[in-house]
């Protein structure tokens, strides 16, 4: 600050507002930090392993008393869904405040207080397309961790060409009757409800005959069957619907207007997946430390292999550039100057880089990275191998990288599609 003569530097109204905002935000940050320090038990500030993630739902079981305390503290403040309105169980935070919360939690290493697909995907779409009644019924239950959701989009015959889906919902008075099957329904066997895309009209172009339905998994005629994956886990299920009666009040958006809801939701799914690295089970060591452990390091900590050093630097730099891109999107949005092309890149770039890192890590482990279940391999290394295999799904689920590139070419670069089918 410079004082020229005795005249204070004049401050414009806009500058004043910015300064006040910054001051308030700093106050918020300080209060938040002491709240987090008081309420997040030390056990909840370590890298989270899968078995200790807190998932909601009717069958909710807390991995530990500390996990319960941390979840309940967040739930009572709406911090499970920080930026949702408080009347629907959220924290009612502004975008800036929610960002500060995220940063502070990251700083302290706080685990996410709740994991749920309703939280990440359905909720944001309901905020846009739900009726007041639907929002009250479902958002609060999601934010409070009472209902756990699964996603019913893909079908055995409808993957990248999602709009060709065939699960039918027929009008039967005050209900729809649903028949068909959904695949890649994440953890459907543990979910309470499922949000589904269903065909309500097959006489029109395919996108125009789809509706968005919420279905209680306890309904008569719903069954699930887990699918074993290359990671040895069964994260995904196939879900079957056999004459399932669904009340019409569970229709989101317009009848036959489900594609718009689906696209809104996909936006959030892709955003979530671009940052999935932050939520994934973290190895205890950073990439650099792992490299130091696996290959000889020189005195002073420089890696012995200059080739490896270059590869790690290249990866870390790309990771930072992706963070800058995310920051740029956020800042543009806040200023009301969004470049709509940029968010289209995030899923493709983010998931590709996670896989690049997985490959580096796997290679570094050498023979210690060649089994997911052999007892001669340490548990932490077996987990890394499983993560490597599991992350192969990242560039497939939620719209494959190839679909993302189609979308980027078409919407960001304006390149025409040959048959115009996307």
């Amino acid at each position, binding site marked *: 600050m410079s004082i020229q003569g005795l005249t204070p530097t004049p401050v414009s109204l806009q500058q004043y507002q910015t300064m006040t905002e910054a001051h308030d935000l700093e106050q918020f940050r300080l209060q938040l930090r002491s709240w987090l320090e008081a309420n997040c038990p030390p056990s909840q500030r370590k890298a989270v392993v899968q078995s200790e993630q807190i998932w909601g739902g009717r069958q909710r079981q807390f991995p530990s008393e500390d996990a319960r305390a941390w979840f309940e503290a967040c739930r009572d403040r709406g911090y499970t869904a920080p930026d949702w309105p408080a009347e629907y169980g959220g924290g009612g935070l502004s975008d800036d405040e929610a960002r500060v919360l995220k940063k502070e939690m990251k700083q302290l290493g706080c685990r996410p207080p709740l994991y749920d697909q309703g939280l990440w995907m359905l909720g944001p779409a309901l905020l846009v397309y739900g009726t007041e009644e639907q929002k009250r019924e479902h958002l609060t239950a999601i934010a409070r961790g009472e209902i756990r959701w699964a996603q019913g989009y893909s079908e055995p015959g409808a993957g990248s060409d999602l709009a060709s889906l065939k699960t039918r919902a027929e009008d039967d008075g005050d209900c729809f009757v649903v028949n068909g099957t959904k695949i890649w329904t994440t953890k459907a066997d543990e979910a309470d409800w499922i949000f589904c895309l269903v065909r309500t009209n097959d006489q029109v172009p395919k996108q125009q005959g789809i509706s968005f339905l919420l279905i209680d998994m306890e309904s008569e005629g719903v069954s699930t069957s887990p699918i074993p994956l290359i990671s040895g886990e069964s994260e995904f299920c196939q879900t079957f619907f056999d004459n399932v009666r669904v009340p019409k009040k569970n229709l989101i958006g317009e009848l036959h207007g489900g594609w718009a809801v689906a696209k809104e939701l996909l936006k959030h799914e892709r955003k979530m997946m671009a940052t999935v690295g932050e939520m994934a089970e973290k190895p205890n060591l950073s990439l650099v430390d792992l490299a130091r452990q696996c290959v000889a390091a020189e005195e002073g900590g*420089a890696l012995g292999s200059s080739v490896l050093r270059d590869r790690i630097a290249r990866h870390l730099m790309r990771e930072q550039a992706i963070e*800058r891109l995310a920051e740029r999107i956020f800042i543009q949005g806040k*200023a009301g100057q969004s470049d709509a092309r*940029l968010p289209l890149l995030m899923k493709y770039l983010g998931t590709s880089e996670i896989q690049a890192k997985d490959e580096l890590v796997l290679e570094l482990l050498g023979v210690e990275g060649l089994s997911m279940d052999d007892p001669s391999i340490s548990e932490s290394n077996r987990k890394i191998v499983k993560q490597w295999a599991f992350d192969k799904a990242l560039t497939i689920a939620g719209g494959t990288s190839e679909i*993302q*590139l189609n979308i980027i070419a078409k919407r960001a670069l304006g*390149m025409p599609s*040959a048959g115009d089918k996307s």
Partner: protein
Amino acid sequence: MILNEEQQLFHDAMANFFSEHASIDALRRLREEPSKTGFDREVWANLVELGLAGIVVPEEHGGLSFGWLGLGAIAGASGRHLSPTPLLSHIVLAQELLLNCGSAEQVASHLPALLSGGEVWTVAIDGGRFFQGGDDSVNEVAEGRLTGRKVLVPEGEAADYLLLPVRRTDSRLGVFAVPAEAEGVHIEATRMMDGRQYANISFEEFDTSDGEWLEGNSLERGWELTLNRAMIVLAAEMTGSARELLERTVQFLSEREQFGVKLATFQALQHRCAKLYGELELAESAVLGALSAIDHGESEIAAKASLAKAMANDCFTLVSSEAVQLHGGMGVTDEMDVGLFLKRSRVANQLLGTSDWHRNRFAGLAGF
């Protein structure tokens, strides 16, 4: 990471100016009629008149304090047109080095001539095949005597004044300022494939009383700071060039027909362009992050500068190679501008550090 209204207006005015007076056609004319300067002095005078020289210079020194984000945007606009101007050598390298390494008296005595465009200044950095962050290629071999050689000095022949790092007799860093016309400064013009003028400059037992040593407080720090800022601005210029070239390439594919359809309808080509676009926005994001870091206290600026320059190097190299390929036969003709972008990319890649150099520095800064 976004421009304020004033920066946007200034950028728009500059972009217009580049497009009208310093376009690729102007570069072609300069290429065909080799002038001593390698840039158009009248264009440069106009740019200075518009206020470009003082854009990041603090107001107390007679500048505009307009911010680095604003300068970066203008560098990007100049990159779009491959405008040959002393923007990097004079406005960033020389002025910043004077401000960061000069004493108050030296700044007061020299800066006005730089800001008014009365003199063109440049900095001689490299001495060998590769950029090394400023090396020991010119040494004070005995008290008051300089010997050594510098290469790839931008605007080295046109400049009125040269700044260069010198290893002093006590092996400390010195920064020496010398009028180009001083006797014993041997300047040999070189024209690189980007069509711009550079010079090799050598000294043989040069008497330092014909120039002056910069006498600021912290020469090492000032030198580092100047280079980091220059890397970031050059990276901004390079992403501007890469963006222009990608747009032209997509445009070409959207017009050219083969097999009865536009080339742009082929998915193989769409995916290549989409990937290039991803690389472009990553590089641009790294550049914008680094520019706004200069404006906000410069924390970890060396790592950010290396991130920006490495990403810009890789992006511009890739985009320009792909652009040639995607233009087919036309891509290898001199008639198309694609080749000019290709050549500029390889020269800019070497200026202020290749990606290898920057990744090596980045890893060192990160402690591995």
